[in-house]
């Protein structure tokens, strides 16, 4: 018998067996799909959140405020220091005059109220650092530069978004880890469910298995349908999980205009690699459950 013939035979026997004990098979498929759904849900949500964070990180600017009385030489010295790292794309110096123009544009009403007393607003020069999104710095590199800058006597204050951004990244990571471990735990449970169902299938078919061994079927042939049962259940579970998640995503995405959070966490669906991974994970878990359950049965139990 060729390999393809054998695989065809295994799968058709597996489907026949699943139809026969459809209740147990349904439980197994649901168990595996729930675990994969949970894992995939967290991957989807945290993936989108992570992308959002990255996008923000790209636009991240760091402002270094100098003393109000900083000289041009001081400013030039600071710019020279800030321009050194390769990940710094731009250093824009905003002079007090430019700063005042910006303020005027942003708050024209306030300026009109202040009237001629423009000089009252004493703005410091600011060096705005733009980071190269294609070559972002390590957190430690960034911190080192900021420390060096802060040590300069002309630097008054450094304002950057790193701190809360770092916190956000940590939260996303924790949420993802929690979701993945929850999914992994459920997957282990689902694997055992499949193992039990396959064992039940082997029990239902024990007489036929005995006959197969009696007439000289190899163990590969005897166990193939049982392995295929686990594999097919895992596969169905994976597809069901993806389909459910896809449905949820479509529904929420269609109403994303109504909520502020939906675009953050449901902007994009999982990439095809992740989808494939989920299905492969389901199939492997099912196959593993089947192998574990069949391994316990010693061959040659014809008597």
């Amino acid at each position, binding site marked *: *018998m060729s390999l393809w013939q054998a695989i065809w035979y295994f799968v058709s026997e597996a489907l026949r067996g699943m139809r026969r004990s459809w209740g147990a098979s349904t439980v197994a498929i649901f168990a595996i799909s729930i675990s994969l759904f949970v894992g995939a849900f967290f991957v989807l949500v945290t993936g989108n959140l992570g992308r959002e964070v990255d996008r923000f990180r790209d636009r991240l600017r760091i402002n270094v405020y100098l003393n109000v009385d900083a000289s041009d030489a001081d400013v030039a010295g600071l710019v020279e220091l800030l321009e050194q790292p390769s990940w710094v794309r731009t250093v824009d110096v905003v002079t007090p005059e430019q700063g005042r123009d910006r303020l005027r544009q942003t708050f024209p009403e306030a300026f009109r109220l202040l009237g001629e007393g423009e000089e009252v607003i004493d703005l410091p020069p600011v060096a705005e650092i733009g980071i190269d999104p294609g070559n972002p710095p390590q957190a430690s590199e960034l911190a080192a530069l900021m420390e060096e800058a802060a040590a300069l006597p002309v630097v008054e204050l450094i304002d950057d978004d790193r701190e809360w951004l770092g916190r956000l990244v940590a939260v996303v990571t924790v949420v993802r880890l929690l979701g993945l471990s929850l999914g992994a735990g459920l997957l282990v449970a689902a694997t055992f469910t499949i193992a039990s169902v396959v064992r039940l299938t082997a029990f239902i078919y024990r007489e036929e298995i*005995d006959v197969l061994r009696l*007439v000289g*079927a190899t*163990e590969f042939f005897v166990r193939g349908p049982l392995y295929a049962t686990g594999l097919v259940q895992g596969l169905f579970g994976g597809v069901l999980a993806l389909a459910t998640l896809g449905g949820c995503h479509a529904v929420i995405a269609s109403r994303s205009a109504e909520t502020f959070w939906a675009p953050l966490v449901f902007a994009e669906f999982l990439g095809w690699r992740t989808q494939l991974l989920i299905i492969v994970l389901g199939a492997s878990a099912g196959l593993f459950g089947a192998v574990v359950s069949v391994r316990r049965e010693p061959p*040659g139990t014809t008597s």
Partner: protein
Amino acid sequence: MIRCFNVRKTYPRGQVALDDVSLEIERGELAFLTGSSGAGKSTLLKLIYREELPSDGQIIVNGRNVATLPLSKVPYLRRSIGIVFQNFRLIARKTVLENVCYLPRILGASMKEQRDLAEQALADVGLADRSDAFPLELSGGEQQRVALARALISKPELLIADEPTGNLDAELSREIVELLVKAQGQGTTVLVATHDLQTIERHGGHVLRLEKGRLVEDTQVAAPGAVADEARE
């Protein structure tokens, strides 16, 4: 065909099923294994088709030493042996045809080849018209004939029958024995465990008698017909 050398079998909890059994069954023989219940008949058969391993001694079946045969080779041994049991061991939810087809199917025969082989095997046991029936729709005698068709479908070199008539009345038993004899006539070595002494007397053959795990008789019994034929000459 079968040679046993000082075979001993002790089951895990210490029951001695076979004790120092040596015997030889020639190719093409009709051999009867007799003895009261518990004498060790089924155990000896299980050793021959490698369902159990001997605790001691050697067993050569069709040139293979089954005592040392690796587990992975057991299927190939089994394919050269047809086996039937007292309780038929048919699969109730499969048709007669499907029950008979197991061996050709695992060997990868096409559906048509399977059907042709199975129908021939069923015709050989007189059940040509029952292929689509289910086992439980058949009488006990017919079920045993289906089991025989399954065992004989690929013309095995050895046919092993463990009390094949134990569940059948005298008339049906005779039919089954006729089929065993017919298989022997076509070149298959036949080994039957039975305590039906009438059968042996009627057909003659190689008689091996076990008693409490020991071989106590090993004789060739001539068929009465043969004796009558000789007398007539």
